[in-house]
């Protein structure tokens, strides 16, 4: 009978042999031996399976490593072929700020050969004024891993001129396939020069516009100044005489001076409307009307007093160009006063304004001398005057029409000789247009 080998060794060591053991004792040993065998088999199986799995793991590990290497290699390959084939010039800058790699397109953009660049410090090829900016940008991409920053820098070319380059710098220092900063860029010198030229001509235009503005105001001032001196002398002459004829003559001179002066003001209004960009101001109609009518007060004193009635309903904020709104109202109201009917016992002008989110409707109605229907189209023409009694310059309504057009508004007239005139004007609310359609406002 053969027991399990381990058990045999243990018996031999403990008791020498089993001679003289009883049947029962031997039977027990046999059972023990079987359980030894069993355990041994179990352990062997476990060992074998462990052995097997560790083999598998090593294999797997090896496979993975191989795959990773292949992938890395593949990535490097892909990366290189990508940067070699892209239109953008690409350079890799290592952590020592040396140029580690350049794409073929770099040669095309800058005119250098690979050996001129690779291994050199990148600073050598950057414009000194840009260095601080670049190191700031790099600092940002370093502190913020794998982020990318847009850059606009000057890079030195082989011919020692600088090319304006636009592109991005990306931090791939953690990527083993790259291990540096990737700088991709394209030469935009031509575009930049165009842009600079446009900017320059824009600022020149702005400057010449400002100069023209200054010129227009200076000229109008210099034209007015002697007129107003004359007006002053007329005033003091009149106030220091009791001679009726002199007073009458002074009044005639004053009338002529005033006409010439308002003509200058109208030319100024015209040039302003034609030239000045549209502005967007909050419009307070009551305030504008108060100012306009108080400006016209002295004019009313000279003719028959005209009752100016104002009715304003503002349902929403109204936005438009304040100066232009003032020009429109001033011209129309002064016309109503100037052309009041001398046969009318109670001459009036009714100003009704209703504004909402869409538009402002302006109605200016008078019971003045009126305009014959046949002239309704012509009165808006430049320098058109209805009769020899017109004391205006023939510019007023032309300016009104031009200004309303400029504000994208509409204008209509109803008038009958001897009955009176009504102007209806509608001006869009530039505030609402802006919020509803920002594109529309680009015209604004």
């Amino acid at each position, binding site marked *: 009978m053969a027991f399990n080998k381990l058990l045999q060794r243990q018996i031999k060591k403990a008791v020498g042999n089993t001679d003289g053991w009883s049947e029962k004792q031997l039977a027990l040993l046999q059972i023990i031996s079987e359980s030894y065998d069993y355990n041994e088999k179990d352990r062997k199986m476990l060992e074998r399976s462990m052995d097997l799995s560790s083999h598998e793991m090593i294999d797997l590990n090896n496979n993975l490593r191989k795959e990773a290497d292949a992938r890395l290699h593949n990535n490097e390959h892909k990366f290189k072929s990508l940067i070699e084939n892209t239109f953008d010039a690409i350079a890799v800058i290592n952590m020592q700020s040396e140029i580690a790699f350049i794409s073929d397109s770099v040669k095309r953009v800058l005119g250098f050969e690979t050996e001129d660049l690779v291994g050199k410090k990148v600073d050598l090829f950057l414009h000194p004024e840009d260095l601080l900016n670049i190191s700031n940008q790099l600092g940002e991409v370093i502190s913020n891993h794998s982020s990318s920053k847009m850059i606009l820098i000057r890079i030195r070319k082989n011919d020692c001129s600088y090319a304006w380059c636009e592109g991005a710098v990306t931090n791939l220092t953690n990527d083993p396939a790259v291990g540096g900063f990737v700088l991709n860029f394209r030469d935009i010198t031509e575009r930049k020069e165009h842009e600079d030229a446009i900017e320059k001509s824009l600022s020149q235009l702005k400057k010449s516009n400002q100069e023209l503005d200054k010129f227009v105001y*200076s000229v*109008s001032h210099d034209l*007015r*100044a002697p007129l*107003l001196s004359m007006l*002053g*002398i007329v005033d003091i002459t009149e106030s220091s005489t009791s001679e009726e004829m002199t007073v009458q003559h002074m009044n005639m001179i004053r009338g002529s001076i005033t006409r010439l002066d308002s003509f200058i003001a109208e030319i100024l209004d015209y040039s302003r409307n034609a030239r000045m960009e549209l502005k967007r101001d909050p419009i307070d109609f009551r305030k504008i009307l108060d100012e306009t009518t108080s400006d016209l007060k002295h004019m009313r004193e000279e003719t028959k007093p005209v009752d100016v009635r104002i009715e304003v309903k503002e349902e929403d904020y109204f936005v438009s160009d304040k100066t232009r709104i003032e020009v429109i109202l001033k011209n129309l109201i002064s016309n109503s006063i100037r052309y009041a009917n001398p046969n009318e016992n109670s001459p009036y002008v009714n100003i009704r304004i209703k504004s909402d989110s869409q538009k402002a409707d302006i109605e200016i109605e008078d019971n003045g001398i009126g305009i014959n229907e046949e002239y309704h189209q012509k009165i808006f023409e430049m320098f058109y005057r209805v009769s020899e009694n017109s004391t205006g310059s023939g510019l007023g309504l032309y300016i009104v029409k031009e200004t309303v057009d400029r504000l994208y508004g509409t204008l209509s007239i109803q008038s009958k000789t001897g009955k009176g005139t009504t102007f209806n004007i509608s001006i869009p609310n530039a505030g609402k247009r802006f919020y509803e359609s920002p594109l529309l406002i680009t015209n604004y």
Partner: protein
Amino acid sequence: MVSPLFDRIMILDDTSIDRYITSYVVKQNNFSNEIIEFGMAAQALEYLERHFDQPEKLPQLLFLDIRMPQIDGFQFLEKLTLLPPVILENCYIIVVSSTLDPADLRRSSENPHVKKFLNKPINKSHLAEIRNELAAKNSEPSF
């Protein structure tokens, strides 16, 4: 006849005819006892600097033109702030101009020393306006 509203006013304007008009209207309306006229800002500054410690020489009101050669009205005001403050403190400054430039009006209203803007030419009703405003501001004028 009521006594003049001011003891002394100053007119600073490069146009002599406008100085003539203003001073004529001032005299005619018994607006001020004495009128100091200057055609150049530099002369006015020199006068004010020389007399800053003599209150009986300083103007209580100034009619100031804007557009003048060399030093214009606004530059004059700037230079005035560099002189002893007593000059500005006791002077009611009124800008008088024939400008149509809104920028001139804006600059006048933004200047803390400018109390009023008047369009040329100065006339009787302008002076009445000033009189009323000063009366409303101070029921007992200290002038």
